[in-house]
Structures are given as C-alpha cells and as structure tokens.
C-alpha cells in the first residue's frame, strides 16, 4: 500500500519485505527437499549435510515399485488425456461453432462439478463404483480422472476456436477450399497452441491427481503420488521421498514454463471466477 504511484522513486520496502518472506516460505522448503535428494548423510543438528552424493538416486530408481508406479502413472495420464482430447475437442468445436438446442445450458453444465466440495463428490462417485465393481481397477481410475479434465479440455479449446479469425476461413472457402481443408489449414494452426496448452495441462494434472487415484484405485492401482503417500506414511529412508519429489517435479516444471504465457494475465484468473 505504501507504493501507491507517488512513492515509486523511493526504495520499495514493502516489495523487499514480500520478496524476502515469500522466498523463505515458498522457495525455502523446496530447497530443503532438493538438498535431501542429493544427500547421503545428514545427521541432526548439522546445518548442511555431512556427505553429498547420488547414491540414493541409484537406490530409488532401482526399486521395482518406483518403476511400476512411474509406468502406471504415465500410462494412466496418456490414456486419460487421449480419451479426454478425443471426446472433448469435437465437443468444444461444436460448442464454439454450431447451434443446437440446449447449447448454453449444456455448456455451463460442466461447471456442476465445481458446485460441490471435491472430495465429497469423489466419495459419492466411489459409492457408485462400489456397486459396479470398478473400485481398485485401472478403468475406474481412468473414469474418475477423465471427469476431472472435462472442464479444462472443453472451456479452453472453446475459447481457442472462438478466437480464430472467421474472415480467413470464409476467404479460404470462397476460393474453393473444402471444409476439411479449411479446418486443417486455417482453423487448427490458429487454435492449435491454446489447445496444446489445454492438453498439456490435463496431462500434468492427471499425472499428479492423488485423491481419486487413492480413493478409487487402492490397493491395486499405485500411481506415483499414491506411492509417495506410502513413502511418507511409512517413514522410509528420507532420501527416497526426496528423490521422488525431485523426479515428480519435472513434469510440473515443464508445465510451469509453458503456462507462463497463459497465467499472469487476468484471463486465467477470470476462468476461475475472479
């Protein structure tokens, strides 16, 4: 508040205070985890580890449960993202370009999931899956994670399709391009980057999805986040969890780099109702 327009020339004390506090509180814990991942010996009360090294990377990556979980997570995320793209992108195109009865109400129906506290809804879904014998199965988890991607995968592409310049499409059609050709050469290149962002976000989101996988998947389906829960609960070697955290953070980092353009502008927050 002290930095309202007139004080711009002065030293930005509040900015420095925010920067220092947030660095400590947000970056600090992540640095501690990263340090643990490259530590071989760190006994209390030493401020820095006695011995750095990669020994635990070999041990963690050599564990079959880690590999199984990683493969399963990648498989789940790929299947969910592909299915989601397959059913959502045509729907997004229809919402953006076609006129049909009940269009607006159907479009806003994807908001329904946000009217409920999320885990309560998951429990209600699990009660149905219990009767359908979908608990503890791969496809049960696919279904629950698929529902989680619907809104992102429809609303973002709808905005992308609506942003495409219609005059260019009409011009192409005027010179005799077929509808498919117009879609391929005009519509897709313009809407493509945003759609790719939605696909990437839903892949990363699915990869980290913990609650549905834990509630529906246990005990048969152990994804990376679920494996991590058991590592935390069972107090295994600290470094296993740290190495997994660093590994797990890689996809998130890619998404972060990619989303930098999308986020920051108000558009993203407005999508959340801001």
């Amino acid at each position: 508040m002290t930095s309202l327009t007139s004080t711009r020339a002065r030293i930005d004390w509040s900015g420095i205070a925010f920067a220092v506090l947030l660095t400590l509180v947000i970056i600090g814990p992540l640095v501690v985890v990263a340090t643990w991942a490259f530590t071989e010996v760190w006994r209390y009360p030493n401020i820095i580890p006695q011995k750095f090294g990669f020994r635990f990377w070999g041990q963690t990556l050599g564990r079959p449960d880690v590999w199984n979980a990683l493969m399963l997570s990648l498989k789940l995320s790929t299947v969910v993202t592909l299915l989601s793209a397959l059913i959502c992108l045509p729907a997004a195109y229809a919402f953006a370009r076609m006129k049909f009865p009940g269009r607006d109400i159907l479009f806003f129906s994807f908001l329904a999931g946000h009217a409920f506290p999320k885990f309560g809804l998951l429990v209600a879904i699990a009660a149905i899956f219990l009767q359908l014998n979908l608990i503890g199965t791969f496809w049960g988890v696919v279904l629950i994670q698929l529902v989680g991607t619907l809104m992102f995968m429809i609303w973002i592409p709808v905005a992308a399709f609506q942003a495409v310049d219609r005059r260019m499409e009409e011009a192409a059609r005027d010179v005799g391009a077929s509808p498919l050709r117009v879609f391929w050469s005009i519509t897709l290149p313009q809407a493509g980057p945003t759609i790719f962002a939605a696909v990437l976000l839903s892949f990363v989101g699915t990869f980290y999805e913990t609650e549905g996988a834990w509630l529906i998947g246990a005990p048969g389906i152990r994804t990376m986040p679920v494996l991590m829960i058991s590592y935390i609960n069972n107090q295994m070697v600290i470094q296993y969890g740290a190495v997994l955290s660093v590994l797990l953070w890689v996809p998130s980092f890619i998404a972060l780099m990619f989303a930098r353009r999308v986020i920051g502008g108000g558009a993203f927050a407005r999508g959340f109702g801001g």
Partner: protein
Amino acid sequence: MSEFVEKAVSVPTETAAGRRPIGLLLVAIPVFLVIWLVIWPAINAISRTIWRTDADGHSSFDLSSYAFFFSDRYSLDNLAVTLWTTLVCAVLLLVICLPIALYLRFSHGRLPAYVQALAILPMFVPSIILAFAFIRVLGPNGMVDILLNAVGLPKIRTPYLTPWGPVIGLVWDNIPLTVLILLSGLGSVANQSIEAARDVGANTIRVFWHIILPRISNSILVALSFSVLGIFSSFTLPYLLGPASPEMLGPFMQRTLRDVQDPIGAMTQAVVAFGFCILFGLFYVRSVARNRGK
C-alpha cells in the same frame, strides 16, 4: 453471456440448420459423463441416505444415518475440526493474499514480477511434494529445528500431526489462486478514482476502505468460496499432516468408505459436506458462469 450468445447467433444459418443434430452428437459423450459422474452421484448420495432399504427389502424414508452423524461424538468432533480449519485458512488466506495482491496491483518493475512469480509458484508444486517438504522443514528435527538449534534456541513445538499442520499446508497451497483472483478483481479499480480520492486528502486506509474494498468485495467472496470448497473436503494434506483424531471430513470419509466399508455412512458425511458448502458452491458457479459469459 450476451456476447457468447451473439457469437452463437452469428453462425451462418445455412450450416447451422444442417448441423443441428451433429452438434448435439458431438457434445453427447462429455455431457453424458457429467450427468453420470457428477450429477447422478450427488443425487444418488442424497437419495440413498434418506430413502433407506431395511433388512426385509422395504424402502422407506429414514434419516437415521444423519441422526447418527449428528449425535456421534467422533463425527461431530471431525466436523468441528473441519469447520475450524476452513475458517482459519480462509482468514489467513485473506490476511496474507490481500496485501500481496494490493502490492502487485500498484507497483511495476522487476521486484513485483519476482513477488508475483513466487506467489504463483505453489500452483506448480503438487500437494504431495508440499507434504513431504513440510515434514522436512517443520517436522521433528526438521530444518527449522536445525536452524534454531544452531543459534542456541529451543526446538519448536512441531505443527506436524496437529490441526495446524493441514492449516499451514492448505494456506500454502491456496495462495496462488487467491492472489490471482484478488488481482483480477483489483484490475477493475481505476487509478483515477484513487488519485481523485488522494487529491481531496484521503489517506491510504480511507482509500482502501472506501474506494478499493467496495470494488473488490465480489472478488474476495469468489476467492473465499473457491478456497472454502477446496479446503472443506481436502484430503491429501489433512491425511498426511493432520492428527489421526479428530480428523477432517476428507480423511474421515475415505476411512469410512474404504476401511470401515460403510458406504451409507460415507455418503452421509459427503451430503453433510455438500450441505455446508452449498451456498459457496452456488455462488462460485454463478460467478464463473457470469464471467465466462461476458
């Protein structure tokens, strides 16, 4: 909404008429999924907990599972700790995020850009990694203990496995969206109106109270609704960082369903959670729909 509808209307009519059934067909599967896996489970949970089938196969109106929930000491303690956590988190989020958002709105340059990047970063840290980091920093013999010990101070009383554990984790996790939503609301406060108020002698507090606050009250409510919906039934952080008893509704529901194998009990707890969140949920959905429609 109006612009949205206009865009729809502007679709060339000759194609619209021809494609009418195709449009419905294209959206059918996602809409079916929403009905089957969002709307139906909610209705199913309510109907199966109030319209119960007894041992003889007769179904009748029966509120006994709710009567049990609201008379059972343990359930009530869990509900109380859930309400307490949600309230404390909401207040803390507002106290932390409003100053950050105000600072970001009224400054330019590299320092605010850095502050904004930090405030958004938790969005890209999965809560499972956050839980692990929390234990290594604030847990017994964690980094804070190490540092305190180094300067000769006693250890902290660790918040790990106390009700404050989930509070700290959930606040950390919810900072980015709260800041973004508040910042987006602050975008509608015009610089001129603030300068005008300053010209007539209003101080910082009066500017905030009379000019800024009224314009962003809706954004504050949206941010609060969003975090209340997320926090009230959160699972991962309370499960990993909170006490085993009393536990928040999230872990409580999970245990009732999977460990105790009592789906009716779990659904009752879920419906209670719906009931407590319904106003926030409807308000949030209305705001998103209105914004999206603009």
